[in-house]
């Protein structure tokens, strides 16, 4: 039995700098595989809706206006999203991507958390059909 077995740890740590990151003045960056905001590629999407069906948080809604003309409105509720990446796995066309670049999502109101992707006119049509109070701001406006 000994006394003060961890003393070398403590004395060694005296010379070390604090590990706390001075965010937001200092950004260490994120890991390459971090799953951040979902990206939708309208060219590849076929409107099958598997992403919406498999989403555990029910954060995705695919509104199909005209399947042949590829008129889709992809509604994405960011504050519901658990960033699990199942939609990306489920998409057979590779139309969805969760890159690591948009992860600073904090906002003072709820508007940035409801994203609509698609043709602006189509988004208006979809929003008009939705019940009042649910509408947010289109992503590309």
């Amino acid at each position, binding site marked *: 039995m000994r*006394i003060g077995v961890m003393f070398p740890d403590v004395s060694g*740590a005296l010379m070390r700098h604090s590990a706390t990151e001075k965010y937001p003045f200092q950004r260490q960056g994120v*890991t390459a*595989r*971090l799953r951040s905001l979902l990206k939708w590629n309208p060219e590849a999407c076929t409107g099958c809706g598997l992403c919406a069906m*498999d989403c555990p*948080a029910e954060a995705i809604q695919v509104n199909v206006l005209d399947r042949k003309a590829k008129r889709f409105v992809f509604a994405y509720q960011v504050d519901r999203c658990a960033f699990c*990446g*199942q939609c990306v796995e489920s998409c057979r066309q590779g139309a969805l991507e969760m890159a690591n670049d948009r992860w600073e999502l904090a906002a003072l109101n709820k508007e940035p958390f409801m994203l609509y992707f698609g043709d602006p006119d189509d988004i208006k049509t979809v929003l008009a059909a939705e019940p009042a109070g649910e509408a947010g701001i289109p992503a590309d406006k």
Partner: protein
Amino acid sequence: MNTKQEPQRFVIPIGPQHPALKEPGNFQFTVDGEIVTKAIVRLGYAHRGIEKAAEERTWIQDLYLIERVCGICSHIHALAYCLAVEQLAHVEAPPRAQAIRVLVAELERIHSHFLWMGVSGHEAGFDTFFMYSWRDRERVMNILEKLTGNRVNYSANVLGGVKFDLDQEQIASIRGGIDFLEERTRHYLDVVATDFMFLQRTRGIGVMSRAQAEIMGAVGPTARASNVARDVRKDAPYAAYKEYPVDIILDERGDLEARFEVRLKELFESFHLIRKILDTLPGGELTARMPRKVPAGEAVMRVEAPRGELLYFIRSNGSDKPERLKIRTPTICNLTSVVKLAIGHQLADVPMILAGIDPCFSCNDRSVQIRTSNDPDGRMLSWDELRQHGIDFYKRLEK
């Protein structure tokens, strides 16, 4: 702390807020001076209804719900669920996926044991141990983040395989991290085995004999510290544990010191296993094709979570949703030992005995125990009685 004096006995309630650990659970210790003479545990404060919620979701959606049963051992829950569903659907994940699953499970075990080690040190009043072990735990958290994208809730599994592959850069970073952690684990093993002050809190405290461990159904490192050779990885190898066998670490002493040493020595097994997986990672696909509807049937899956045996029971009726899902976590098996072992010890030793089983209350809260004021020990209710109890309860509220 509220205290209640009764003739001939003094009951000290601990919890439900923060009973040694930052999770809700209520303990009532009857003391004679400083010595505990009786202990009662009451659970159910963190009941989240996950099993019922799982019945409302599809097989794929459930995977992410299941992953959130436990924040510390999220991967092993998802793995048990995936293996059970794959068993029902007669799908087998490819060898490379199984090896990556085991790799993440072992990294998670390292993270969980380091976390437990720090918390137990904190319970013993050894905060230096707590802080430095948690500082080193960051290394394994960083590896997991680099590998999966997340520090917790890794989402590594999909039904039929895993989501991501390993590249050379990641393999190198895992190797570097494992070398560092192995050296630190050796140091911490030295600390728990030789530090005079710490041994005062662990040596000979909460001794559980082998016979007691078997009767009380202890699982995992808690049982192995009492010389019960019980490890699902060895007894019923799942995923890639057939190709990558582990040795069971046993100790005869059964006290808290033995539990510390067993858990820390298990880490060396994990390091060894991880290196072996990285050396001989099989090639091939990452996922197998999985049907959306799972054939009717029942499956039971046992896996070795960091805390012990974790059991999943799943019943399918052939639809795209499970009909019934039952989870039994290791904490519920080990909790009986806390109630038994606390008797005869000083009240000050109780937090250490509790921390010694590495409890996780939120994981194990699957049921609610109904108690009445004139029956403090609790009682069993049949389904009809429970229904009647509910009706009476709300009738009383209306009045």
